[in-house]
């Protein structure tokens, strides 16, 4: 009996750059899953030709050629400002600003807050992995209480650093509920993440502002194996509520 090996091409979204591949990120990283899911959502809504993708510095930087859509890699925390600069100048564009928890909630927080208040026509994707990955795993605004990082080697002491920042709750509190979509999703459920991205993109396509925080994983800096990684993600989901905060009929 001869063995026949079937060569099946991977199921890639059209909005993903075939040549870049998923190997850009560390083994087990959540970014690849988030980006691929986002690309599928863009495909489904047929927004590829209208979308502009901006990425921040940090691990999100590695997505600079991940998508097969026009992309600009910006500076630390500045993706939001560049992308609303684009959509203000070209109101037809679907602006997507892709960043981590540091880029969104620390160094670029003023842009996030003001883009939400002004209802800029854009989707902000904030991938929350509770640390600064690219710079070697320091504490970020979302680092969990007690979590060990390079700058909290004995665990995050909230009496010193304050409590973890809850981005989606903050944005939900300030965004215009008539034209905004605000949600938190997780890489533990990609089907749900895809429908979340679809709603968010649809809202932007209708002229609104969308914010999606995605709870993600960083096994390398967390120093966790598969089982522990999954357990950590479960803990995050208990701490950061996964749900839609602001939505409306018809999305």
């Amino acid at each position, binding site marked *: 009996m001869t063995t026949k090996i079937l060569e099946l091409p991977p199921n890639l979204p059209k909005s993903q750059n075939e040549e870049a591949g998923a190997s850009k990120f560390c083994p087990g990283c959540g970014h690849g899953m988030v980006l691929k899911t986002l690309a599928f959502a863009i495909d489904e809504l047929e927004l590829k030709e209208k979308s502009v993708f901006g990425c921040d510095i940090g691990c999100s930087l590695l997505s600079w*050629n991940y998508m097969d859509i*026009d992309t*600009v890699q910006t*500076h630390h925390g500045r993706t939001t400002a*560049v992308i*609303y*600069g*684009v959509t203000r*100048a070209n109101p037809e*564009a679907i602006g997507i600003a892709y960043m981590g928890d540091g880029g969104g909630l620390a160094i670029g927080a003023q842009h996030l807050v003001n883009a939400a208040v002004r209802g800029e026509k854009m989707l902000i994707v904030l991938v929350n992995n509770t640390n600064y990955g690219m710079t070697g795993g320091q504490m970020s605004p979302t680092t969990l209480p007690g979590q060990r990082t390079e700058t909290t080697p004995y665990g995050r002491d909230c009496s010193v650093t304050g409590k973890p920042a809850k981005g989606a709750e903050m944005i939900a509190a300030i965004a215009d509920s008539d034209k905004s979509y605000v949600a938190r999703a997780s890489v533990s459920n990609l089907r749900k993440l895809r429908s979340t991205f679809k709603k968010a993109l649809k809202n932007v396509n209708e002229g609104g502002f969308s914010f999606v925080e995605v709870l993600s994983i960083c096994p390398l800096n967390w120093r966790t194996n598969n089982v522990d990684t999954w357990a950590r993600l479960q803990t995050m989901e208990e701490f950061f509520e996964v749900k839609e905060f602001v939505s409306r009929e018809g999305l």
Partner: protein
Amino acid sequence: MVNKLIKEDTKMFLTGNEVLAYAANAAEAEFMYGYPITPQNEIMHTWCKLLPKTEAGFLQTEDEISAGFSTLGGILAGKRAFTATAGPGNVIMQDAMSMAEMMRIPFVCAVMQRGGPSTATVIYAQQETRLTCYGGNGEGFRIVYSTAGHQDLFDYMIKAFNTAWKYRFPTFVLADGYQGKMREPVTLYDPASRGIKMVPVEASLLAPGKIGTDRPSNHLRNTFNMEEELMEVLDEYAVDFAKLEDEISEYEEYKADDAEILIITHGIVARSARTAIDELREKGVKAGMFRPITLRPLAVKPLRAAVSRAKQILFTESANGQLAQMILEAVYGLTTPYSTLYKMGVGVTGDDIVEKVEAMLKQPVTV
């Protein structure tokens, strides 16, 4: 497309900030991103007041960081966009200006200098000269026009857009609080009436064509993995920038041909130097001026020729020698002795210069 307001030559009595807004419109600028900081606010005030007529765009951002970066976004989207700032705003906008340098984005910014360092004064200075020429973590691949009054502001603001879009280096109109706030007569015109054709703009993001069939997706980045990869790019930029000296450098000489005392200055201080030179010439003193208009790139050849001809040089600035530092590097090897008249953050008057030159005549400088 925007509506141009100035269709024929129009003499007006305006503040410099107003002139800049009209100039941007004359240059067919389509979008301004800005954040309030004195003494440049009236650029946006005027721009906003004119919007119903011009049908251009404006966004007031949350700070100068965002003003700088959103301007980059607007330009990448294919608009002739610009911003303006001053002082501490200029400091925090350097990040965006660096990105423009690295990515060859035709960024245009008017800088209305105020006193420094820090918050200092809201009034006037020439203390952002070095920052505007060499700020950011780069090599100063920037074009900087230093203006000396309202006609300059109008002429060079229009020119800045064309230089930026033609050569794709960030381009600055460097002025100051005096020029921004003062009123003097100026003639506004349609650039076409002077034979000036605006360089067409194009989008880097969402350019025409379907991705995959007409064109590949465009991935713009400013991060490199390898040291050599970066240097290869920058070496190319350096070659491009070096060519600019012959192509776009500008300077003004005033009675410099036979000048024994050559005053080297820039911007609005050049106006005081003119007043002083007229007075000194009446007294029989052979004084003259060399004023670089482009501070980046400097017109090095004529500068060296003028310095060689003179017996003594006087550097004068409303700063502590920020221009002189650049000039001295450019005239390396020449031995004409020099003296300085620096008033940090304070206007230099004609009287100040006359007094200094007379002192130099009495006791010539030797170094």
